[in-house]
């Protein structure tokens, strides 16, 4: 991201919705850390006759969007854009379709209602249909950096100026077969495998002092340890490149793969108590990683301060974002609190 960018993404509202079991049993708005009174049924999200056309991931995303305040005020979203971060789309629906094909007498005898859900972009496509979002709609796959990539692209969309509102999503369903395999391969307990959808509603702004948390800059790339470049250097260089001196950094949120753990000592020395290391379960949550970190900064960076979030995977693929804090608007930093539906 070039440093001459003055366009930024102000966080209007955000929701992280976790759904551990069957839909009607309810979910949790993660940022409140509460188990809500769940009175939302799948039938409220889509007409009953159309339910067969949705899979769990799409319903989860629609449920999360139903909690975003600015999406539900009757305002036209025709000029909004959607950027979906995902590791592998609705992979469980793909697995189901392959099984049906393998097990049927004829290999084409698969459930036609679920066919549209087998493409990686299915959930954000369903979201666009439900809410009439007619701007650019893209699905980005970059493992743990997916949400970072969504922010990079969101800033580019904002700079282009043909959308005023951007919904960035991240979504993973860990309860299915793929999630189980993934969790097993990383030694995660079943209780930690919770299907989660995150949505951040951004409004584009040209004033970095816009109230509320503001994503000012974001970059992704790859760091080669052999080059001698350190994560700490990268963070400081990035901040300095955006005109932020180290003493203005109020919080540094990092998520690092095991092979980069040694870097945490250096970071601890450089940033002290400002350093917040994402817990392992969340660090293994694929596209949700960046969303967890942005949620953390949105709640913790004080007015006038700046937070940095960074993620580095085993191979050095990284993402870094700069998030400014300023006077918070009602409903902006604390995420959705739609008590009529949840909590």
């Amino acid at each position, binding site marked *: 991201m070039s440093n001459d960018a003055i366009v930024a993404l102000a966080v209007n509202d955000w929701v992280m919705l976790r759904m551990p079991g069957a839909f009607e049993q309810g979910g949790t708005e993660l940022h409140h850390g509460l188990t809500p009174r769940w009175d939302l049924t799948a039938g409220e999200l889509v007409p009953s006759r159309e339910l067969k056309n949705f899979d769990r991931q799409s319903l989860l995303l629609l449920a999360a969007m139903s909690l975003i305040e600015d999406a539900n005020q009757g305002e036209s979203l025709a000029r909004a854009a959607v950027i979906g971060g995902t*590791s592998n789309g609705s992979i469980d629906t793909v697995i189901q379709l392959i099984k049906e*094909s*393998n097990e049927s007498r004829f*290999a084409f005898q698969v459930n036609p209602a679920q066919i549209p859900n087998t493409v990686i*972009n299915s959930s954000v*496509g369903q979201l666009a*249909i439900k809410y009439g979002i007619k701007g650019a709609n893209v699905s980005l796959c*970059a493992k743990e950096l997916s949400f970072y990539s969504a922010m990079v692209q969101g800033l580019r969309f904002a700079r282009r100026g043909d959308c005023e509102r951007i919904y960035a999503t991240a979504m993973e369903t860990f309860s299915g077969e793929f999630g189980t395999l993934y969790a097993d391969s990383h030694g995660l307990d079943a209780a930690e495998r919770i299907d989660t959808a995150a949505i951040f509603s951004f409004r584009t702004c040209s004033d970095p002092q816009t109230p509320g948390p503001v994503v000012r800059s974001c970059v992704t790339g790859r760091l080669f340890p052999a080059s001698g470049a350190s994560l700490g250097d990268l963070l400081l260089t990035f901040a300095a490149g955006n005109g932020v001196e180290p003493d203005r950094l109020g919080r540094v949120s990092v998520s690092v793969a095991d092979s980069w753990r040694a870097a945490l000592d250096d970071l601890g020395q450089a940033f002290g108590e400002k350093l917040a290391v994402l817990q392992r379960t969340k660090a293994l949550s694929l596209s949700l990683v960046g969303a967890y970190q942005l949620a953390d900064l949105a709640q913790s960076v004080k007015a006038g301060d700046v937070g940095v979030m960074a993620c580095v995977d085993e191979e050095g693929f990284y993402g870094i974002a700069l998030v400014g804090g300023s006077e918070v608007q009602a409903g902006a930093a604390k995420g959705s609190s739609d008590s009529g539906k949840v909590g």
Partner: protein
Amino acid sequence: MNSSGKGTRVVVTGLGPVSPIGIGKEAFFHALKTGVNGTVPLSKIDTQRFERKYGCEVKGTIAEWVADFDAFAESGTPSHFALAATGLALADAGIERAAIAGKRVNCYFGTTYGESNLIDDMVTAMAQSQPGRHASLGRTFASEISRDVARSIGSTGEAVTIGNACSASNAALIFGYEAIQAGDCELAICGGSDAVYKATFATFHRLGSMTDKDCTPFNAGRKGVLTSEGGSALVLESYERAIRRGAHIYAEVLGFAMNCDADHMVRLNHHSVGDCMKAALANACVPPGTVGYICAHGTGTAANDSNEYKAIEAVFGHSPPPVSSIKSMMGHSMGAAAGFGAIACMLALSEGLPPTINVSEQDPEIPIDVVCEGFRAGKVDVVINNAFAFGGNNSILVFGNLK
């Protein structure tokens, strides 16, 4: 007729097609000019329990086209296609790998189904309860397609796989264009890849939108899609960089647009497609009358071709530019398709218009100039590359000869 007034100019300097009708620019262009029909009985999936048997497949051993293949032997076929396409595109651009290693070269590849053969293998292993079934789990992520490309060139830039289904490689090109314009990189490798895949075949088969043999876009009585595979890659770079290194410039990216039908998951909305085309032309600062060719999405389904025609008519009135669908020759390679369309556009800008083959009786309800008599010699100056997808995702690019 350029985008110089909009900031950094972005140009195409390398082409890497890995297609069923030809691997490499020369073979691909030759096939397009001679109207090769790539339809074959499929060998890469077992069609015994399908009623349909035909598709298009990349011929030969892909390993021959991938530098340091052993390092990527465990990757999926789509990654192999992307790697092969990247190698060809870089060679065509005259760029040595050593010259870009450690540089910020952004890699964007589109796909519909990701590392599909590995996912298929994983499901088979699940059914057989094979121990160690998740040994290659990490390889099944769609991100690995673009990351393998980044790994292969030692890039320090972005690596993002774009899962926008059949418009994904146009979206990848748009990402590259925007990244260069933003000053985030000077060079980007953009394209798409997908492999012939049982799930794809079952999907179109089940939807009743698959042809029995030949793909016949714009023809009366057309029957549908012919599934295909391949990898497409284009090198994009800033105009200044291309000039500095004396590169051959195929075209300038004049503009683009992306939108979403927000209407139906699989049914094309011609109003929305028309809006997208108008927005792309406006973004490119190009009046409709100057467009010399449209590389159609042209899947060969009754509904797609009809809706695409209505969209074209809405933008260009009753005298639209010539249109063709290269899917008539090479089938629908899903996430790679728009990249092949973009490469075909380079042929249109330099030599002439690729044909739509298999048109025996043009649909009277689509009264446009479909290039169906064979290759139409004579270059044009401005072209449009259309791409639409499940989910209502439309991505359209405008290319032009350098002025």
